[in-house]
């Protein structure tokens, strides 16, 4: 075990090209873009499929198909088709992000208590009000779990960007391996892992903030005394 690369202060200099701060920033940039694009595509489709019940085979099968696609292979294919650049990387990462979000949006909508939705309609909510005021808030815990698993996967996998000449924490792995600098490889692996944990913690906080206490079970259970 050699952690010298990781603890070398020079590598943590904000302005150092190839230093941790810049690599992390680039890495998070890929992650954020892939999550954004993936969510914009998968969330409405998943909500729609879950809401209407139509095309549920897409939601179920896309999950399995998406997970079985090797991201690195897909990236190489995209590079062959589109040339080098950010686009092939984002496409490969977005394909990774879509299945968990699509599946969780679908599952979240399907798991809703139909009586509550019926009450919402019966009280005179318009369809979009039912969707945004009742269905989505109720499905949020499931939606968030899908988003968090997508985020974890993409944080780990965004290292592939370095394989096609881009930046990100993958640089430490690729470059370290190229020059047999295992301290650098180890540093890259550790930073990616820590980043993944921190991101998940952050998302857990976001979830806590946006999911109603009435759903998360954080509201204290009812007292047994009063039964009427």
């Amino acid at each position: 075990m050699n952690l010298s690369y990781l603890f070398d202060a020079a590598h943590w200099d904000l302005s150092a090209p190839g230093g941790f701060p810049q690599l992390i920033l680039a890495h998070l940039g890929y992650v954020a873009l892939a999550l954004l694009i993936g969510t914009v595509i998968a969330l409405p489709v998943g909500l729609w499929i879950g809401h209407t019940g139509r095309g549920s085979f897409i939601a179920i099968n896309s999950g399995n198909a998406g997970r079985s696609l090797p991201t690195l292979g897909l990236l190489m294919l995209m590079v062959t088709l589109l040339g080098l650049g950010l686009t092939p990387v984002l496409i490969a990462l977005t394909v990774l992000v879509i299945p968990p979000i699509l599946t969780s949006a679908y599952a979240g909508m399907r798991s809703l208590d139909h009586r509550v939705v019926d009450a919402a309609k019966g009280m005179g909510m318009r369809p979009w009000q039912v969707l945004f005021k009742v269905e989505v808030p109720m499905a949020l815990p499931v939606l968030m779990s899908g988003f968090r698993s997508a985020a974890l996967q993409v944080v780990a996998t965004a290292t592939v960007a370095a394989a096609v000449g881009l930046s990100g924490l993958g640089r430490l792995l690729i470059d370290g391996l190229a020059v047999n600098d295992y301290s650098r490889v180890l540093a890259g692996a550790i930073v990616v892992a820590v980043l993944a944990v921190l991101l998940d913690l952050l998302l857990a906080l976001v979830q806590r903030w946006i999911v109603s206490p009435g759903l998360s079970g954080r509201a204290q259970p009812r007292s047994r005394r009063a039964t009427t």
Partner: protein
Amino acid sequence: MITFEDVVKIYPGGSTAVDHLSMELPTGKMTVLVGPSGCGKTTSLRMINRMVEPTSGRILIDGRDVAGQDEALLRRGIGYVIQHAGLFPHKTVLDNVATVPLLLGKTRREARAAALELLERVGLAAEFAGRYPAQLSGGQQQRVGVARALAADPPVMLMDEPFSAVDPVVREGLHREFLRLQQDLGKTIAMVTHDIDEAIKLGDRVAVFRQGGHLAQFGTPQELLEQPVDDFVAEFVGRDRGLRSLSFDTAADLPVSPLTDGGAELVLDEAGRPVGWRLGGVVQPTAGVFTKADSLRMVTDLAIMSPVGVAVRVGADGTADGLVRHHDLVDFLATRRDRRAAEQEA
């Protein structure tokens, strides 16, 4: 008034849920739709607020056809209570109740003020306002459901098995409170239940449905118990309907005998209030007493329970003023039955 005009509902697939239904639900009264499962009672209810669209026929609320109205606006003007309450789990009790006022464009402050008042009205203290539905018991949830339906003060309310998900003791309490509430509010209510006892107890009118979406009988609870139109209704209403129909008449016209005619000595206290019957030197307590305002059913019960087979009537001050013996009661009920039959003929 809610009017069904020859309403038919045939579901895709061809099953007839409601078959040529015509009835009028009177304004300010509670009409209970009752029948076995699959009789079309819930479908009929849900056609009033257009949760289900009829295949043919019209439904009018105070003369206005619901079909021509904007669905959402129509529903905001109709209270809607469902089984298990269907509360929004992600909203507090207060915000659940404030839902419709907010939809109607009230400010958050106004809506919450109205909601708080309604919560009090259904017997939930302000401390419940900030709780979430998961923190409430079934009975409390159902009360919130009723408060939520009443929040915008709609003239019409639809209730789909509102009390069937709670245990009998809680249900009893909810019934009492609901009757009291309805006495104050005088809403036009359509309620669905599969429980005939609940229908008889709560309904000003009862519509009995039978399988296939036919209306078997529409009338007051008393009419249903005393003059069921056919065997189906008689069977559905139950075997002890004769006894139960006695709940609807008071003892006002019931003749009484002097206190000395009980066959045993009625012991009174100094104020003249009955204490018990002297039987073989021992004073056995009366089973209870009745006033002119009590039901014939209660008098019958007292006569059965009494150690000497005699029910004791008291005046407003609690002093004994007459006796009703088994055979007096039987004679009276026989005359009452004959009189009813004669009225029926005429």
